[in-house]
């Protein structure tokens, strides 16, 4: 098993998807010969030809509209939106079209073959137009699946599952980890089931939940807590829509406490949905209020990135506060 980074793992998944499905097509801005601004599609045009891996003009709404058209006629459309910050021109095509294609037609037509890949998140000195985490805008749209991997291994398995899933998926890639996350990744094809959270660390005192790039942050916080004698159960949600209520609720019933961490701003963030559901499911088991450690309700700031981020220290403080409540 080779040690590779997340970009290589994504490239690997894309290669397998293209090899095993001759209806699969990859397109987006700069994804052709150049291989994408992050090089996720590197070498794919050479391998699969210009008809199957190509540049599009610079138009996110066009990319998403084109994806809808391809998938509505039986193709597997793998579209790259260069930065999640630039997905908004495509919002109508994703929210009003991809998400509703099957429902509005009574299953006469569907676009389940679409996967929108897009790099998200901060920590790269990208300011507010190269750092956002817009996942919550999509989780409120019935008909879309929303997936976020935390490392190279997860990225390959979740991306392959997303591409092969029979529903449109928005796949958010934590770009801060593209090269930083290196791990053992099998050469062969494998899928990680969508809609299933993973308990990455067993614990007894408190449940700490995150996804994507924030997983390494909460794992670090859990280590800090362990030194204080606090046993954290750490969960990676992995799929935000539809999300795995059972795994999270089972954990909170055991620990009685929950801290949720995400990079996106607090207000209207997905942590709110999780908190509301878990208090419903686990009300009599809770020992303290469910706590959220999130981005501030500001646009993503460039120079104060470090202060803005829901980092390990903030998470550690929230864990201690919950324990002491």
């Amino acid at each position, binding site marked *: 098993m080779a040690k590779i980074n997340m970009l290589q793992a994504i490239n690997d998944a894309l290669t397998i998807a293209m090899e095993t499905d001759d209806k699969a097509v990859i397109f987006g801005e700069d994804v052709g010969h150049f291989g994408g601004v992050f090089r996720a599609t590197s070498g794919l045009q050479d391998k699969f030809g210009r008809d199957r891996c190509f540049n599009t003009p610079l138009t996110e709404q066009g990319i998403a509209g084109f994806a809808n058209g391809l998938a509505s006629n039986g193709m597997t459309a793998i579209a790259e939106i260069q930065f999640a910050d630039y997905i908004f021109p495509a919002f109508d095509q994703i929210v*009003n079209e991809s998400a509703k294609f099957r429902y509005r*037609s009574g299953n006469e037509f569907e676009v389940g073959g679409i996967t929108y890949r897009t790099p998200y998140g901060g920590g790269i000195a990208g300011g507010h137009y190269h750092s956002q985490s817009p996942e919550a805008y999509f989780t409120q749209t019935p008909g879309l699946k929303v997936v976020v991997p935390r490392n190279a291994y997860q990225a390959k398995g979740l991306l392959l599952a997303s591409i092969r899933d029979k529903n449109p998926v928005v796949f958010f890639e934590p770009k801060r980890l593209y090269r930083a996350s290196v791990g053992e990744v099998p050469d062969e094809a494998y899928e990680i089931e969508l809609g299933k959270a993973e308990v990455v660390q067993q614990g007894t005192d408190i449940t700490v939940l995150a996804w994507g790039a924030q997983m390494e942050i909460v794992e670090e916080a859990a280590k800090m807590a362990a030194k204080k004698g606090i046993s954290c159960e750490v969960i990676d949600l992995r799929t935000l829509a539809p999300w795995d209520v059972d795994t999270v609720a089972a954990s909170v019933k055991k620990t009685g406490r929950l801290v949720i961490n995400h990079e996106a701003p607090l207000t209207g963030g997905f942590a709110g949905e999780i908190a509301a559901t878990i208090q419903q499911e686990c009300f009599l088991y809770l020992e303290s209020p469910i706590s959220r450690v999130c981005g501030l309700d500001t646009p993503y700031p460039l120079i104060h990135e470090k202060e803005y981020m829901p980092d390990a220290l903030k998470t550690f403080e929230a864990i201690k506060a919950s324990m002491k409540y």
Partner: protein
Amino acid sequence: MSNATSNTETVHRVSFLDKDSLSIPILKILQADGTTFENAVLPVIDQDLAAKIYDTCVFTRVLDERMLAAQRQGRISFYMTCTGEEAAVVGSVAALDQDDVILAQYREHAAIRYRGFTTEQFMNQMFSNEKDLGKGRQMPIHYGCEALNYQTISSPLATQIPQATGVGYSLKMQGKRNVAICYFGEGAASEGDFHAGLNMAAVLNSPTIFFCRNNGYAISTPTNEQFAGNGIASRGVGYGMHTIRVDGNDMLAVMAATQQARAYALEHNKPVLIEAMTYRLGAHSSSDDPSGYRSKDEEAKWQQHDPVKRFKLWLINKGWLAENDDAALYEKYREEVLAAVKVAEKLPAPKIDEIIEDVFDEPTPRLKQQLTELKQHIKKYPDSYPRSAGRD
């Protein structure tokens, strides 16, 4: 790498282009009296095809007349007519193959009729009953049928344009000898999706026909408040696309243009833009009243250009129809539509269980839970939910 412009001519004093720099003729074949222009090159059409076209026009007229009345009586919630634009729609669809994929805007029900959508299917959709292919989920006139290669209508304007680019590209990738055709109005052409879709089609070599029904109005907004350029056709040239402007009330001109557009698109794997100049004789929808923004005189003038009458005159000239031959056809469809209304409006709505279907390929546990809770609630208060209560 050079910039991909067409020529390298230079000038040495300032000289601007304007909208009249490009002269765009209008293709006309049929004259007002039903004869053809001298030297006009007719489309490929025989008596059977002409009869099918005329039949579709008559059906559409009757459907529009009856269903607008049904809306006024409160039997359906909403309606939109095709009146005045039948030649643009039927003339184009008649130039296509049955397996060419149609992505329409909403005013093109004549096209799905031409393909074989039955009177009963129209009614089931409009009455949102349990036989509606769309499972009662969309407003009246949002038809769609996979078997007829007519993609389901979506209310947001122009979203179908880049989608058609994708459908055309997929047909090419699948090695099919088919094109996609995309209908939209001149108002929708102001949306960003228009630019995105046409530009991508030209760059990516997608065999797609973009068919603009320039009918003069986007609800109340006239074309001179919609764009300042030379119509929609001038833009096609800007995208590097084969483009033609036709008289949209001239059935033969629309057919000829679309037949040749299709042949070109298939032969070269390239898109074509057709701008059909027409006029929306009816209101935008049953919720609209045109008297607030246009004159009776203007409407009367356009009544003179009725596309169905003009085509009928041509049929009579050809000896394929006599003046009163169609009276029985009108009567037949009036009865058929009325009978279908009576059946469709009595059929029940789809069962409440279908509310969670087709969100995903399979309902999620959470959706199932929501349905269970909803059904328990309906059971508790059956009188408040008569459509669904007691139907388990």
